[in-house]
């Protein structure tokens, strides 16, 4: 399986996106650099072997987490709504692998991938999906409200566009207290139409805040295609309205994401202000579990699956001699074991005690 060719106009490769636009700022340059810097002793594209394997493992964790969440939702083990991230792994991992705990991310309803990439405890996440007392939020949050502020994970978010001002705030803290941290704001193509997008980009731009806005354009907001709901051919295009850099990146290409993010995070850390990154990607499951997905074709889905981000990384690692198929299989096995164990632990864990209903909030009545 060949890696996606960045020399072709990016938008043209995404039937879910709009036609290519003359206005798009692309990362062609930095991606060429990425592509030519392959296969050094240090690893690939300046990323060393250990980190490469770690990134591969994170992507696998997300994939297996989501596949099992899908199955266990169907089996009735997860109450409520679940939105799965499978297919989009390269985005969360390509970016979060460059962050530490002092860096803060905000996320969305489709937040599992961001959480895992940012280092939130997987056992705690599984338990949280089930509403168990051992969940990262004691079972009080659920899938859409997983958070771990100590890990710099400021919450999945049930409100589309809700996380953007929060990310600006986290960046303001970093700047004011001089922590050296950056904030990364993940959001979808649908969210790019919310007013908070506009307000947040403008604020971050005028205050030159260390924040990276990452639009995960997976082609759809629920059942609505981006070509209908969004007036811009490329969402990164909207960066021009704030006179900040905008970049379109192939969200199925871990290395392209990594490179573009390195640039944007670097700018942020150097005090040069925000960047708007648009990662063109695709979700394998429906909008939420239970979605009949009548609005897209099997064929479209299969086209994306053929360029699967994890398979691409795997092939690349082998091709460049970073790891053997056996070594990667061992990682896959470890991840499956980890997730099986997490689900077993989750099933065994108790629900929260009744008293928990009234704690963690000032109660007045």
């Amino acid at each position, binding site marked *: 399986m060949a890696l996606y060719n960045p020399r072709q106009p990016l938008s043209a490769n995404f039937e879910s996106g709009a036609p290519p636009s003359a206005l798009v700022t692309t990362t062609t340059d930095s991606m060429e650099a990425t592509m030519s810097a392959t296969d050094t002793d240090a690893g690939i594209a300046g990323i060393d072997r250990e980190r490469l394997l770690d990134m591969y493992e994170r992507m696998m964790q997300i994939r297996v987490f989501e596949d099992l969440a899908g199955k266990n939702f169907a089996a009735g083990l997860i109450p409520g709504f679940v939105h799965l991230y499978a297919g989009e792994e390269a985005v969360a991992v390509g970016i979060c692998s460059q962050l530490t705990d002092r860096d803060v991310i905000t996320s969305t309803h489709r937040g599992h991938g961001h959480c895992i990439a940012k280092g939130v405890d997987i056992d705690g996440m599984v338990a949280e999906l089930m509403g168990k007392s051992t969940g990262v*939020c004691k079972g009080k*949050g*659920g899938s859409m409200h997983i958070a771990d502020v100590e890990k710099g994970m400021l919450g999945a978010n*049930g409100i589309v566009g809700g996380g953007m001002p929060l990310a600006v705030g986290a960046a303001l803290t970093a700047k004011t207290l001089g922590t050296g941290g950056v904030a990364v704001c993940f959001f979808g193509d*649908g969210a790019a139409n919310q007013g908070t997008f506009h307000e947040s980009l403008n604020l971050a731009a005028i205050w030159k805040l260390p924040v990276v806005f990452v639009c995960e354009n997976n082609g759809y907001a*629920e*059942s609505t295609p981006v070509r209908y709901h969004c007036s811009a051919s490329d969402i990164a295009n909207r960066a021009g309205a704030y006179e900040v850099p905008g970049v379109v990146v192939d969200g199925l290409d871990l290395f392209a994401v990594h490179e573009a993010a390195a640039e944007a995070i670097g700018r942020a850390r150097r005090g040069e202000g925000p960047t708007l990154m648009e990662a063109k990607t695709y979700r394998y499951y429906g909008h939420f579990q239970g979605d009949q997905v009548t*609005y897209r074709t099997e064929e479209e889905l299969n086209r994306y699956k053929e360029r699967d981000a994890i398979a691409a990384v795997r092939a690349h690692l082998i091709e460049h001699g970073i790891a053997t198929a056996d070594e990667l299989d061992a990682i896959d096995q470890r991840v499956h074991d980890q997730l099986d164990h997490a689900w077993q632990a989750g099933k065994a864990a108790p629900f929260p005690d009744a008293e928990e209903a009234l704690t963690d*909030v000032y109660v*007045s009545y």
Partner: protein
Amino acid sequence: MVVAAATRQMTYQQAINEALRIAMRDDPRVVLMGEDIAGGAMVDHLVNDDAWGGPMGVTKGLVQEFGRDRVLDTPITEAGFIGAAIGAAATGLRPVAELMFVDFFGCCMDQIFDQGAKFRYMFGGKASCPVVIRTQIGAGVSAAAQHSGCHYSVFTHMPGIKTVIPSTPADAKGLLLTAIRDEDLVMFFENKVLYGTKGDVPEGDEGIPFGVADIKRPGDDVTIVAISRMVQQALKAADTLAAEGIEAEVVDPRTLSPLDEGTILESVAKTHHVVIVDEDNPRCSAAADIAAMVADKGFDLLDAPIKLVTAPHTPVPFSPPLEQLYVPSPERIVEAVRSIR
């Protein structure tokens, strides 16, 4: 003379769909707007077909009959499209906009309470705003802290807004028809847990007037005023109480603004005891509002304290056992009645 219309069994959700269809056939100015209310806009194989018909399927099938110019999928832009519905209402359309969950009101409240709701008054009576905003409320399906609220109190608080809280399929249909034909901004609250409940629904296009409470169960010993889904909980509680010899009268206000004070007070005049059941958070709630009204205008009728059975003053917890504690149960209603009888 009122001739009772023929009825059919249908779900709450079907009743809402039917009311929308009737109103749209009736009046070409009625348009629907909302996120994925048809779904699949610009998808080749779904030209005048819906992908979803709303996340819960409530508006399913309407795009087939009325087309995409009258069933408008919108971007995720609550202030934008609800404001547009309000601007359209002030200039000649009669839009029915869908705010997917009431919890999202914070994204568009300015357009609702500060623009649409105030036009008529602040423009000296020279404007109207015949818009309906349908929205989902209620806990009970583990939708967690940002998809489970009620908050009709916030809208009932605001002048210029009418608030409708149907508890049965028949009420949902009749009240929605009235809402669409009303000249003011109406918030129409659909309880997601009720969507699948069935009941007899009259045929035809008769509306149910606003400000007329419905006695869902007559009784002489205690008045239970219950809102939306809490009517069902109150009816269950009433069964338990009846077994103990306490006959509860269950009053469903059906609209909170306007509020049918008369029916509530008449009931209290008969029972001398009142319990108010509200799934919303308790402070400055609809329950408190009704209690205050009774404590003023019905004080002399009362033999006992006014009891409120509400959600606690907390966000809605995700974990099912905690969420179950959150929603007022028939047991808690029974207990409240016992505490004053």
